[in-house]
């Protein structure tokens, strides 16, 4: 009986996946808040996007939402790719102008 | 708990199932390294290795393997140890994992997933990262330069590869390599030709040419072997590796070559289908025909290697971005139009 209960608790369900995504999201938040390197912040954003994707797919898998979650997750991935390309182009431009990619030192609006 | 117990006998079967491609890769790598030397020798009017073993030095690669096993495993003092050790294994794991969706014969495929080709392309893109990892962790400028060149090259050539594969997928209407192969059974094209996809649509011929050029670049073969161009970069990202770690890199390269050749054989030349219809068909002959088709492509790669000189980096990128990518997309649209009309 006890084994059965334990089994049902440890059997991965919706909440397990959501927990993983919550931890991933907070780690991404930590990176975004505490890092001062643009690329590290970008990595933190990627972590948060992945956490959001896990959520979408988990709801799509465990509730009767059908494939809409997959669809949104797909567009998130597409958006992440576009974002990374543009962000890195910006980072290279910033580096070219300021010779640094530390966010605190990039404070001018006009370079 | 009961389920855990019931899954136990499943594990040996799983391991056996997974070991089949590994065996094929290892045997192939031994044969291919020997064959590469032989082809090189004959093209240059030499004999190649003749000493080890009996006939034509057939045991040369085995002797080399034994030598490599005995070699000292050197890790540079300033290297990033964990990533340095990890990179060759990740590279081999990536090429090995991709074999899961290759239908070796009508009776054997590692995993019958519906997104076969897509999975294969996704997994092989991990190769790029392991190359960067090895090159960066060595803490050597040649390694890093070779790794960056390799990454740029592989990322660029992934685009035409995917575009040409998409052309085939569009004609075949499936991502599952087994289904694509089954579609090509029979000998009805023009009355005598096998139903291979390359004969089905004229734009698939141009697609195959572009696919072949792209896989030459993806598997770092001459004339696109810039990542390890020995005359400029010592050995590229492999410079600091020795012994079995280097052997893993080599094994991964040869496995990658075989993988992409087998992919080409599946997509364009009918996979395990016999070229003579029902003659010599069946699971075992299917395996024979499949490997034969793949190895012919591998042989052509070797032949090209000993014929053509190496391109420059800018020429390499120009070929990809100026010619292959636009052409492959135009080709994709034209193939789609052909399918719509006929």
């Amino acid at each position, binding site marked *: 009986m006890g084994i059965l209960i334990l089994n049902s608790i440890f059997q991965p369900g919706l909440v397990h996946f959501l927990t993983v995504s919550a931890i991933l999201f*907070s780690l991404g938040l*930590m990176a975004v808040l505490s890092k001062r390197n643009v690329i590290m912040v970008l990595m933190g954003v990627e*972590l948060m996007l992945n956490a959001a*994707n896990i959520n979408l797919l988990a*709801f799509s898998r465990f509730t009767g939402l059908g494939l809409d979650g997959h669809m949104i997750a797909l567009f998130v991935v597409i958006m992440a790719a576009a974002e990374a390309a543009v962000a890195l182009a910006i980072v*290279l431009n910033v580096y070219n102008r300021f010779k640094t990619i530390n966010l605190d030192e990039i404070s001018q609006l006009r370079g | 708990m009961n389920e855990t117990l019931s899954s136990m006998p499943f594990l040996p079967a799983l391991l056996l199932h997974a070991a089949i491609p590994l065996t094929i890769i290892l045997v192939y790598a031994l044969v291919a390294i020997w064959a590469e030397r032989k082809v090189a020798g004959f093209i240059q009017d030499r004999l190649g290795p003749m000493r080890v073993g009996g006939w034509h030095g057939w045991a040369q690669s085995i002797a080399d393997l034994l030598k490599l096993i005995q070699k000292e495993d050197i890790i540079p003092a300033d290297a990033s140890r964990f990533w340095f050790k990890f990179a060759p294994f990740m590279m081999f794991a990536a090429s090995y994992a991709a074999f899961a969706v290759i239908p070796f014969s009508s009776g054997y495929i590692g995993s019958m997933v519906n997104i076969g080709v897509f999975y294969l*392309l*996704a997994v092989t893109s991990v190769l790029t990262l392991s190359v960067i990892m090895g090159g960066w962790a060595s803490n050597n400028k040649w390694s890093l330069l070779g790794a960056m060149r390799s990454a740029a090259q592989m990322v660029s050539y992934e685009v035409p590869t995917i575009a040409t594969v998409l052309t085939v997928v569009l004609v075949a209407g499936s991502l599952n390599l087994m289904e694509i192969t089954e579609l090509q059974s029979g000998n009805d094209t023009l009355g005598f030709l096998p139903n291979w996809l390359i004969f089905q649509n004229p734009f698939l011929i141009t697609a195959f040419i572009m696919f072949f050029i792209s896989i030459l670049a993806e598997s770092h073969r001459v004339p696109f072997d810039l990542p390890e161009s020995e005359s400029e970069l010592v050995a590229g990202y492999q410079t600091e590796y020795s012994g079995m770690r280097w052997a893993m890199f080599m094994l991964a390269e040869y496995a990658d070559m075989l993988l992409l050749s087998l992919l080409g054989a599946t997509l364009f030349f009918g996979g395990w289908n016999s070229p003579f219809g029902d003659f010599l068909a069946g699971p075992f002959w299917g395996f024979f025909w499949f490997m034969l088709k793949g190895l012919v492509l591998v042989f052509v790669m070797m032949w090209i290697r000993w014929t053509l000189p190496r391109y420059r980096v800018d020429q390499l990128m120009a070929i990809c971005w100026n010619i292959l990518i636009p052409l492959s997309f135009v080709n994709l649209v034209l193939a789609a139009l052909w399918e719509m009309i006929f």
Partner: protein
Amino acid sequence: MDLAAILFYVFALVTIGSAAVVVFSRNIVHAAFSLMFTLMGVAALYVLLYADFLAATQLLVYVGGILILILFGVMLTSQGYTLNFREATVNVVPAGLLSVAAAILLIYAFSTGGWVITEVDERTDTVYDLGMMLMTDYLLVFIVAGVLLLVAIIGAIVMSTRLSVNTED
């Protein structure tokens, strides 16, 4: 526990552990390589969620594309020698507190959500269904996404060409 459960825990551990390395590592390149494990772990979790197509997309786009871009960015913007990719960390305590609070809040909300759970059969034809949806319900979004990618590519190319002009001066 069956095989799927074991796999879930293994990959969840890999994902979260390597994400922690990404956040707490002081070397950017190590962080980027660890991010690869995170992304692969997430891809494995996608597979466990019956999203095979998205798992492959994740590998192809994130590991084969974005991560390589990030590494290129790191290599092109770092000063000094290869092993010396140190980066500054600020506000560790407030940031840590905030993220722990976020994690606790999220987990609390998720576990007390009272979700209506319906058992779904294992999906096998996600690719086919996704394709059909892309061409019907999500056609506009699909086109907008394509335009977004086009704009992003053009923007990136324009910016990097200006970059090369600047460096030539």
